[in-house]
């Protein structure tokens, strides 16, 4: 549909050649077509990519925290005070100065990324891991010799410092009428079944996200964060736990619809709790490893609600043993064609029309005239 916009510059070229044959030369005719054509293609790409853009969250954990001490260095420099007529310096003066390098802290994770850290975070890690290794940087300092202190992860599970980071991926399902897409859930259903809004990881910060909803048990939250952090690098999985209180299993079905089955790497365990017991369990995930989902559901149904941490451990273990794989959205759904929306097509038409008119006006009123007219003069009447 959007390609019909190409007719606008083509029609414009014919009109211009008919009405102003001497004012529009060949180069201008090409420009009249080329510029709107580029605009149409750009509009199509923007429209389809915004429709299909989605975000997933990757987990990792800090393996090394580093504290770079403040230091300074003397920079020897000569500056020119005056120049001669040919631009050569005739008078030099000493403009050396002391350059200050403030202290800073960084954290490196197990997928090779480095993040900015605070002093408090470094001190916490160094104390928790009982590690603070001095490293002499052998700097050519001026008055302050700053070196480096490194704290290394002690490989104790409970001492894990998790990180969650956002990455983009192409999700054609959300932009299509595919049978894999989900109908929206209305607010009445959200309220009735106590459905959870998708967590705003960005607001929580990369070090403080919470993948558990429906319980505030710190131990459960931490255990799931630690498991995610350790398994994220290998399986790219993001596990979540949603606890529903006194709700039927339909709540989990609607939650799946509400979150459109989550992001491609998610493994979301929904637990239905009532009277101190787990009544139902449902896993929401795009994974092709259905056996993991069913095993987790089955085992969770038979576990004790009071020991949610054990359920989290069981889930992590099953995901690991079952060798979780995330859905390959781009390969599996590459057959889905995403077209620009009608709104985008209309806007593209308007923009193409405006661009075409502007270029036509410039072509008519500029100084360049038709350079092929003379070739055809012998045919003219």
């Amino acid at each position: 549909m959007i390609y019909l916009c190409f007719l606008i510059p083509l029609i414009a070229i014919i009109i211009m050649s008919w009405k102003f044959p001497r004012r529009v030369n060949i180069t201008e005719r090409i420009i009249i077509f080329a510029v709107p054509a580029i605009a149409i293609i750009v509009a199509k790409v923007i429209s389809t990519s915004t429709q299909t853009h989605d975000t997933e969250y990757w987990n990792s954990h800090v393996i090394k925290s580093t504290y770079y001490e403040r230091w300074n260095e003397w920079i020897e420099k000569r500056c020119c005070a005056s120049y001669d007529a040919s631009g050569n310096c005739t008078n030099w003066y000493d403009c050396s100065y002391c350059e200050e390098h403030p202290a800073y802290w960084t954290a490196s994770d197990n997928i090779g990324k480095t993040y900015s850290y605070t002093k408090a975070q470094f001190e916490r890690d160094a104390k928790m891991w009982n590690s603070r290794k001095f490293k002499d940087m052998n700097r050519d300092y001026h008055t302050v010799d700053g070196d480096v202190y490194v704290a290394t992860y002690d490989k104790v599970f409970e001492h894990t410092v998790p990180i969650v980071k956002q990455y983009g991926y192409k999700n054609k399902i959300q932009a299509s009428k595919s049978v894999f897409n989900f109908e929206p859930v209305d607010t009445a259903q959200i309220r009735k079944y106590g459905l959870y809004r998708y967590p705003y990881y960005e607001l929580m910060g990369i070090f403080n996200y919470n993948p558990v909803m429906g319980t505030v048990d710190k131990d459960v939250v931490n255990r799931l964060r630690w498991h995610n952090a350790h398994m994220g690098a290998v399986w790219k999985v993001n596990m979540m736990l949603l606890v529903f209180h006194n709700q039927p299993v339909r709540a989990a079905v609607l939650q799946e619809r509400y979150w459109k089955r989550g992001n491609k790497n998610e493994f979301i365990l929904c637990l239905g709790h009532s009277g101190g017991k787990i009544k139902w369990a449902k896993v929401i995930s795009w994974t092709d490893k259905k056996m993991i989902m069913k095993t987790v559901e089955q085992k969770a149904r038979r576990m004790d609600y009071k020991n949610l941490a054990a359920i989290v451990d069981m889930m992590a273990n099953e995901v690991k043993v079952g060798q979780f794989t995330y859905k390959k959205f781009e390969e599996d759904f590459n057959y889905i064609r995403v077209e620009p929306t009608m709104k985008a097509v209309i806007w593209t038409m308007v923009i193409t029309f405006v661009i075409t008119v502007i270029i036509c006006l410039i072509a008519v009123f500029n100084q360049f005239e038709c350079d092929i007219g003379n070739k055809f003069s012998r045919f003219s009447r």
Partner: protein
Amino acid sequence: MKRPVLIWTIVAVITVIGFIYFMMNLSYEKKDVDYREAMTAQKKTIANVKDKIWKVLKQKAGLLDKQENAFKAVFVDLMSERYEGEDQDQSPMFKWIKEQNPDFKMEMYMDMAAAIEANQEEFMEAQNRLIDIGREHAKLLRAPVSGHFLKDKDTVEVVVVVSSHTKKVMETGIDDDVDLFGSNKKEK
């Protein structure tokens, strides 16, 4: 001088339009072929998944090849019964397998029940993918622009594997055979 320039411009514009038309035709023809090929491949995937279901169940239930036909014959009936819940040792499937394989334990049954559900879901997803490719193909054939280029092409009929009961319901539009509480259940 005015007319030849106009004529040449019109010729150039028609050439550009012709080129775009040719490329669009080529692109839609390719998409049509891609969808047909994807549907053929997906049908094979569905057959593989179906075949895998039996193999997994046979392995998990510890059944012999000679019991295959007997199992397949009762499988649909067994699946329609409850095979999971609080009284799992009373489930018809558990009892049937226990008769065939006395060593069959409840833990093995739990594992098998998870495998059944997982395979059913995998099978359903494979079927949904076929339906979805068929939907995209039908959309391509019927959409205003692509439909013009592919007007001589036929849609591919997507055959969905369903139980005879579902098929009957779909044909008649009547589903009054609901017996949730087992009041009409035969004595076993």
